[in-house]
């Protein structure tokens, strides 16, 4: 562990967040308007619903070098499209197994419900996720993989 720490003192992880327009993206806007800062490593893609997240998006992100993928949607019952979030939850369970088969730690993929009014929660989860990924160190699978 200490080895990794000394090896890469200023390790900046690469993280993408795939979030739904109605809840988590709105929460991110709220975090913005409330000036709640969080690590700059979070790069967000706005989708209409977590239910539209295809497994291949996640896999593509990891293969392109992401150290972490965060997925944010509405709390169960609050989905703008009724239950897209629940469909996403089921699908992402499967995606975890899939990325594990590729050699990525499933902990690098996180699904979290963040409601539209939860600006501080957004900040909290972003910070925590970045901390988690930093602690895990850079994803080395891609480098080892022969593509």
């Amino acid at each position, binding site marked *: 562990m200490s080895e990794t720490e000394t090896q890469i003192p200023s390790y900046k992880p*690469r993280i993408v967040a795939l979030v739904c327009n109605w809840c988590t993206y709105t929460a991110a806007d709220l975090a913005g308007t409330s000036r709640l800062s969080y690590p700059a490593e979070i790069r967000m893609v706005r989708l209409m619903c977590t239910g539209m997240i295809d497994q291949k998006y996640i896999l593509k992100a990891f293969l392109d070098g992401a150290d972490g993928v965060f997925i944010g949607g509405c709390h169960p019952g609050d989905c703008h*499209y009724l239950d897209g979030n629940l469909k996403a939850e089921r699908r992402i369970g499967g995606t975890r197994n899939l990325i594990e088969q590729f050699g990525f730690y499933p902990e690098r993929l996180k699904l979290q419900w963040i409601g539209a009014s939860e600006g501080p929660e957004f900040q909290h989860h972003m910070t925590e996720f970045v901390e988690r990924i930093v602690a895990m160190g850079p994803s080395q699978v891609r480098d080892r993989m022969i593509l």
Partner: protein
Amino acid sequence: MTSQNQPKTSIPKIGVYVCHCGMNIAPKVNVEEVAEHVKALPHVVVARDYKFMCSNPGQDMIVNDIKELGLNRVVVASCSPRMHEKTFRNALRKAGLNPYYFQMANVREQASWVTKDSVEATEKAKALVSAAVTRVAFHQPLLTREVKVEKSILVVGGGIAGMQAALTSAQAGYQVYLVEREPSIGGHMAKFDKTFPTLDCAACIMTPKMVDVYQHPNIHLFTYSEIEKVEGFIGNFEVTVKMKPRYVDMTKCTGCGLCMEKCPTKKITSEFNEGLSKRTAIYTPFPQAVPNVPVIDAENCLTLGKGKKCGVCAKFCESTAIDFDQQPEFKTVKTGAVIVATGFKAFDPGSIGYYGYGRYPEVYTSLEFERLNNATGPTAGKLVMKDGRTPQRVAIVHCVGSRDQRHKKYCSRVCCMYSMKFAHLIHEKTGAEVWEFYIDIRSPGKNYEEFYNRVQEEGVKFVRGRVAEITDMTDDPKDRGRLTVVAENSLTRRTLRIPVDMVILSVGMEPSPGAEDLGRLMGVSRDADGWFNELHAKLAPVATPMTGVFLAGCCQGPKDIPDTVAQSMGAAGEAIALLSKGSVTTQAEISNIDEDLCTGCKSCIAVCSYSAIGFDEVRRIAVVNEALCMGCGSCSAACLSSAASVRHFSDKQVMGELEMLL
């Protein structure tokens, strides 16, 4: 298949505009550097930075560049697309370009405002803008469609909010359906005697309005009814209303009231009088009820609920209006827009043990007090204690259940004002000494502070301190039987133990029960406290994220009558504005199934929550019903053949963006 499927013809020529947003983006994000950075990306023809992109000169800059440089794609790096996407799409439209050739990078909410370090913010902005540039190259022109709309409006909830929305809409010539779940319309305001700050009589305003609603030719009233099902979409909702059995035939009843007089079941707690009086099993909630047709409370009726032979009401009813065999009826109405006006429920203070509500008879809630004070209430408006005596000293306790993290953390906004209304009325009617215990007096409204001053001058004793306890423990034996209110006067720093005869708890507001289910039916989300979410706190306070559904009154958050009425008229205005053209534009971001790729596996059909995908048995492929599709993308994620995809969210577009972010 449709014109939306045109292959892209031209080579992308992209213009990028980085906004300073005054001081909001620029000092944190180095906007020149960002613009410089993206110039190097493929297809970028021009990249500029400017102080306010959303201003007219900013938009003109885009229009000119499109015309002069022949741009066919535009990226604006500024605020959230939730704020200004429409603005810039319109600019493209103005320049003759399809508005979907546009992408926004949110470098304000996601970079400048939330990143501490300026270098990091700039780097993040570069990534976000680059991603937008990559994405926009894959954009396709999309067309929207015009759909005919139903020129009618459904209002849910018949309090002052719903009544006003119904009247305004009806006056504009629209057919209105007003659904109220209680036997009568009127809501909370019908329970009041006087209203602040003018102290005008509530009944004098309410009663004529209720009659207007009832008699208006354009308003169809469903009382004792609830929403059962909502289908369809903006402009074309189909709503099923469940009419609960009244056991009284509305068409026959003359409202003579004989049945109520004769009904032997007389000891049922009156909901309208907040439990302070009794009613019969067949009843109207209050004498001025609209419609003035009683209902039978089946649970308590001897015939219906207890299986006994009574039928007294039927025997006395000369119009033979009583019908014990009535069943629930369902009626489906077509409506273009919906206004939700389901109001609030008063907080139940029973859960605050130290206020002794329910334990000490002389501790009242504010709504109980409204009835006590009302000329049509249980005491005919005489302010007396349960034993008939006139109180000598009364305490009013502010913020009960509000501003309290254990209960409701928000301020309920009306209780300061109605508390002072009570203080004035008690003082005027009984001459009793009134003590008001408050944390802060919140009186921000026209003539509200003046009302506070007036009540102060009447000699009401204001104590700045939240009440710590209400007890019947006394220090002085001669106060036995009275209540003692314990509070710190935070201005003198003394703990007061004031013996009083009556205590009124100024309870706050909470969302009306059933709001959760209704929200689900309507597709309207609620905030952490349970109030319905408006589309935008400042710019769209009556619209909801569900197009075609609007909010009025307290269902959106605590407010007083003037604000409720203003919002109701606003909601009616929005609904009218939406429907007046006769048609609405549908969204372009809907699912599209590529016939050549579809294998007919039906996975998409199984996941679509809107039943928007049908199956073409001849060609054995899935087909999207564009009128029903909401664009959620569940089908595209489920489709293993990459046949289904939502327009504007194609794999190429999303993955292109992803690639540039990493």
